[in-house]
């Protein structure tokens, strides 16, 4: 593979990890529904134990996504994390409090009390999709930073990437495009959670309540998702001149990308149809298959959106402060050698996915039910 092909390959791999992460954020969505979907303690316990067996898959995917992004596009890692400091810190903070909450919530003498741990779960469920969505929104709207590699030769102040706003990333939440993506993601994670509950829990009232709440959530999701879509498809985008490598603003750039990359268009449409069909199955048929359609649809849609942001001569992490500081898969990537080494490693990914799938299936053979939990002292 040529260097360019490797960069494209890695952009797709990183996008795929992000897409899987969004799907797996049904765990977060579920954490915001614990109170809403349960009337009794037992019902709440069913909900917690259903997603509780999955939380670390989501968590691991986030860690792997971070590692893979670091390895393949280190300039993004250093610019975005070191720059949009507060957004990322808040996201991470919410994941710290999540990681302990399942394990500790029902343990005796747990210091903070179950309510606090359940609140932790709620906070993570709310903040993670909202803020991650907002941060990803800035892939389309840009941020204020500058990158100058020559700074390394300035002994007194050698930092290469600099954020140019004092709020260090929090400003992204004030942008309507970013915010609509964040909210769309939040409602999507809730939709996926309810579809997962319908699939995974053996309890009629939870299934009924899920199906009903699904309808409200879906309309909210559609509003914000369509708003986001309308905004990015009509806006100017950050294009790169293939000859000079200079970044310039191009009208309808993302719409052009969609038309110029028909495969992405097909993926996108298939993804959206999948999500809608999944929602339909869940809310009107209470079918347990909804999660698979909506899940696969989510992965395809997110993958397509990130390909719009990064491929076809587009700057995936644009700077509105200094257009030429914008990051693209060409200038932000690792060396050809590293991408190649990592390319070999990526060949193992299907094996990893296969055993995750196998492990998942073997545990989900039995649905989560009251009698199932009654006898298990390992439950959350």
């Amino acid at each position, binding site marked *: 593979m040529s260097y360019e092909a490797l960069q494209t390959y890695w952009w797709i791999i990183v996008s795929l990890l992000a897409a899987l992460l969004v799907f797996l954020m049904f765990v977060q969505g579920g954490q915001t529904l614990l109170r809403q979907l349960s009337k009794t303690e037992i019902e709440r316990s069913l909900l917690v134990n259903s997603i509780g067996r999955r939380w670390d898959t989501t968590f691991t995917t986030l860690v792997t996504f971070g590692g893979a992004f670091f390895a393949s596009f280190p300039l993004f890692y250093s610019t975005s*994390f070191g720059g949009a400091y507060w957004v990322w810190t808040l996201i991470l903070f919410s994941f*710290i409090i999540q990681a302990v909450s399942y394990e500790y919530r029902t343990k005796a003498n747990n210091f903070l009390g179950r309510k606090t741990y359940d609140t932790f779960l709620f906070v993570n469920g709310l903040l993670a999709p909202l803020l991650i969505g907002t941060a990803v929104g800035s892939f389309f709207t840009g941020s204020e930073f500058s990158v100058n590699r020559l700074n390394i030769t300035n002994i007194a102040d050698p930092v290469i*990437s600099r954020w140019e706003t004092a709020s260090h990333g929090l400003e992204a939440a004030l942008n309507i495009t970013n915010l609509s993506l964040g909210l769309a993601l939040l409602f999507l994670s809730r939709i996926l959670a309810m579809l997962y509950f319908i699939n995974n829990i053996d309890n009629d009232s939870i299934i009924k309540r899920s199906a009903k709440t699904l309808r409200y959530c879906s309309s909210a999701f559609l509003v914000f998702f369509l708003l986001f879509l309308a905004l990015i498809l009509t806006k100017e985008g950050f294009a790169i001149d293939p000859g000079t490598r200079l970044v310039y603003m191009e009208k309808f750039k993302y719409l052009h990308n969609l038309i110029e990359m028909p495969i992405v268009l097909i993926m996108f449409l298939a993804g959206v149809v999948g999500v809608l069909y999944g929602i339909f199955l869940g809310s009107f048929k209470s079918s347990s298959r909804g999660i698979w359609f909506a899940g696969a649809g989510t992965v395809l849609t997110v993958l397509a959106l990130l390909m719009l942001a990064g491929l076809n001569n587009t700057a995936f992490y644009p700077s509105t402060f200094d257009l030429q500081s914008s990051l693209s898969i060409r200038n932000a990537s690792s060396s050809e*050698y590293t991408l190649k080494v990592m390319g070999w490693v990526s060949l193992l990914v299907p094996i*990893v996915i296969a055993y995750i799938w196998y492990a998942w299936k073997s545990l989900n053979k039995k649905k989560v039910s009251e009698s199932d939990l009654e006898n298990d002292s390992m439950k959350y």
Partner: protein
Amino acid sequence: MEHFDLALVDWSRAQFALTALYHWIFVPLTLGLSFIVAFMHTIYYKTRDEEWKIMTRFWMKLFGINFAIGVATGIILEFEFGLNWSNYSWIVGDIFGAPLAIEGILAFFLESSFIAIMFFGWDRVSKKFHMLSSWFVAIGSNLSALWILIANAWMQNPTGTAFNADTARNEMVNFFDIALSPTAVFKFLHTVSQSYVIGALFVISISAWFILKNRHLLFARKSIIIASVFGLLASVFVSITGDSSSFNIAHTQPMKLAAMEALYDGEESADLYVVGLLNKNKDNTNFKGIKIPGMLSIMAFRNADAFVPGVNDILNGNEEQGILSAESRIEKGKIAIKALADYKQARKEGNDELADQKLKEFETNYSHFGYGFFKDKEEIVPNVPLTFYSFHIMVALGLFFILLFAWLLYVSLKDRLVKNKLLLIISLWSLLLGYIATELGWIVAEVGRQPWTIQDLLPVTASTSHLSVGSVQTTFFMFFALFSVLLIAEIKILITQIKKGPEKGGSHV
């Protein structure tokens, strides 16, 4: 402005140290206990003896409580490279990102996929698959440590790498040089084996408490036998790999070795300080206590007559031994930095001849590049007393654990453990000593290598993000408060679970 920057570096370091030290409370136990659980689970699988099932479940439960908080602190570490060490992330991301990504793909998924089965698989999957899951968890978490330690070892001894002047960063040129560097191999073996010691001490300490309280005697005695065999093997291995690590450090990080031994004036046939105290002198009159003549030379170079350089040799140079002074390295470093700037400028202006000349100048002086960021030569010396005492206490504890495990095993096999109050009390408190030893090990490795993020190539001062000190201070205290609260919660839950003891009869499944 200069002062301002130093505060930023210090707070960024403080935040990283805080996260790493907390993380390192939980990880060794995860690494060690996972294997002990897997052993017990295997014995249960083979014998179908309910007693072993109860033991497996009890230790597994404690494992889970500890695992959760280890994960919580671990995610922060990964992202802190970007958050606080943005310059570092760019300049070495081409190398450093790879092991982190591989850890996620190859190790962490193994661990997290099977951990759910390990906890919830009782009666939900086949007994064999369930037992294997316990092994996958142990292997996964240890593989995870492998990749993280490869990344850390590369910072201490940057092999397989070349600086690319055009991209202004280090780039990987040989993956296997990085993954299989002796520094990485010794670091991994030393670190995981000492984690097994922690796992063993954990089981022994709790079991000793049960015996002292006259509870679950059979359970506790069986647990102690398993743990002391495991611990004895591991602790002997710790001392062997520790010795290999010192040998490696002597060759790759002479300043760290000098700080570990508080050796100021280098000498042939250097002595090893065994027990004693340091004074404030910065020469070889700085130590009062017991020494072993010539032992340091043997440890460092496998030769009783070998010259071991001291802090002053590295600082002021030693022509006879071919050691360049810090001052001239700083000078050469500044030449390298200037040449890089000139090279970039010449390239921009299309002056290829000048560019080639500057590139050559840069490459000639590159091995001193990192020194160019220092103002004062004293900056290259780590905190000597802290490194010295940490190292010596760690070694003493390491040797003590070997004796403890051997003693326990002997007494257990003679079936006299229950009556041996003294040994039980020592065993109970030995866990605390284990934690002290493991944290001291981190200090030796990480304080000892200051001021470098990457040995000789990049100092901490040139590695930070462009943030205000206030931001980093705020997040420092946020993390400090949160980690502390969670640690208290963890300890309370653990103690409560331990007091409850193992489940009776295993009838619930």
